[in-house]
């Protein structure tokens, strides 16, 4: 066996060909990365997804798949969708707070204008 097999081929216990689609993104030094992605998506699906992408975007695709797979392993029910929900909730709360602050500014400015008018008169 080629001692320089990528992490994917090591995991799948197969020969790592020169044109292996996984090898640029799954170095043998990080076996957990492929193990996690394989557990959630499966090697076949990942291979198909990568084949359909331009070569220059594949590294980013692997990183995002790896992150999502880790999220799903940590939280099998919500995965990374839990993060999205939390962010959406936080955004809604922050928007409410912003609206309240802007209303307070309007009140303070109106008060200031009234004070100026009564001082003038």
């Amino acid at each position, binding site marked *: 066996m080629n001692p320089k097999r990528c992490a994917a081929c090591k995991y799948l216990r197969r020969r790592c060909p020169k044109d292996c689609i996984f090898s640029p993104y799954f170095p043998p030094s990080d076996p957990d990365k492929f193990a996690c992605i394989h557990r959630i*998506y499966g090697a076949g*699906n990942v291979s198909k997804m990568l084949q359909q*992408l331009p070569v220059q975007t594949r590294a980013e695709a692997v990183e*995002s798949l790896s992150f*999502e797979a880790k*999220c799903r392993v940590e939280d099998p029910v919500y995965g990374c*969708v839990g993060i999205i*929900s939390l962010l959406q909730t936080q955004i809604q709360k922050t928007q409410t707070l*912003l609206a309240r602050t802007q209303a307070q500014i309007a009140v303070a400015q109106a008060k*200031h204008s009234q004070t100026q008018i009564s001082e003038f008169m």
Partner: protein
Amino acid sequence: MRGHEPRSSSSCAACKLLKRRCTPTCIFAPHFRSSDQMTFAKVHKVFGASNVSKLLSEVPEEQRQETVNSLAYEADVRLKDPVYGCIGAIASLQKKMLELQHDIAVARSRLLSAAHNNAGGGGVNNNNSSNHVSSLSPLVDDSSPQLAAFLDLVPSYSDLMLLDGSGLDAYLFDIGQPPFV
């Protein structure tokens, strides 16, 4: 004469797509009705039926519908954005959150200034708010963020508190186009 195997009256969307008999104990049937073929097709394309079956068998029954909902959402986003998937959505929301935090900092500074004016003082030095803005992530101004740098900003997943048991549907809304088009 064929065997007397139990048949369900109608196949679920999963068994229809997989062209197999849908049994009464089918793990997919409660969550992928025959009208949900498009949903199952997307989930199957991204995750694969056997992986979904394994995932569902690992969660308690009462949480399986939520699991299916989140898998369907993730699959849908991944198919729309094959490079970044949900990470693109998270980046977009993070950027929105940073912009809002900046807006709040500016608004608070203006409120302080207005309150100070009402108390009879002069103008307030607003430098603090711009320092706060400059410490914000470069993602705010960067139209094509490096993914690795972005992932450092995503809150540690284990620190996040998840929803309090309310359904996902109540919170998720259409996040629009991914930012990295």
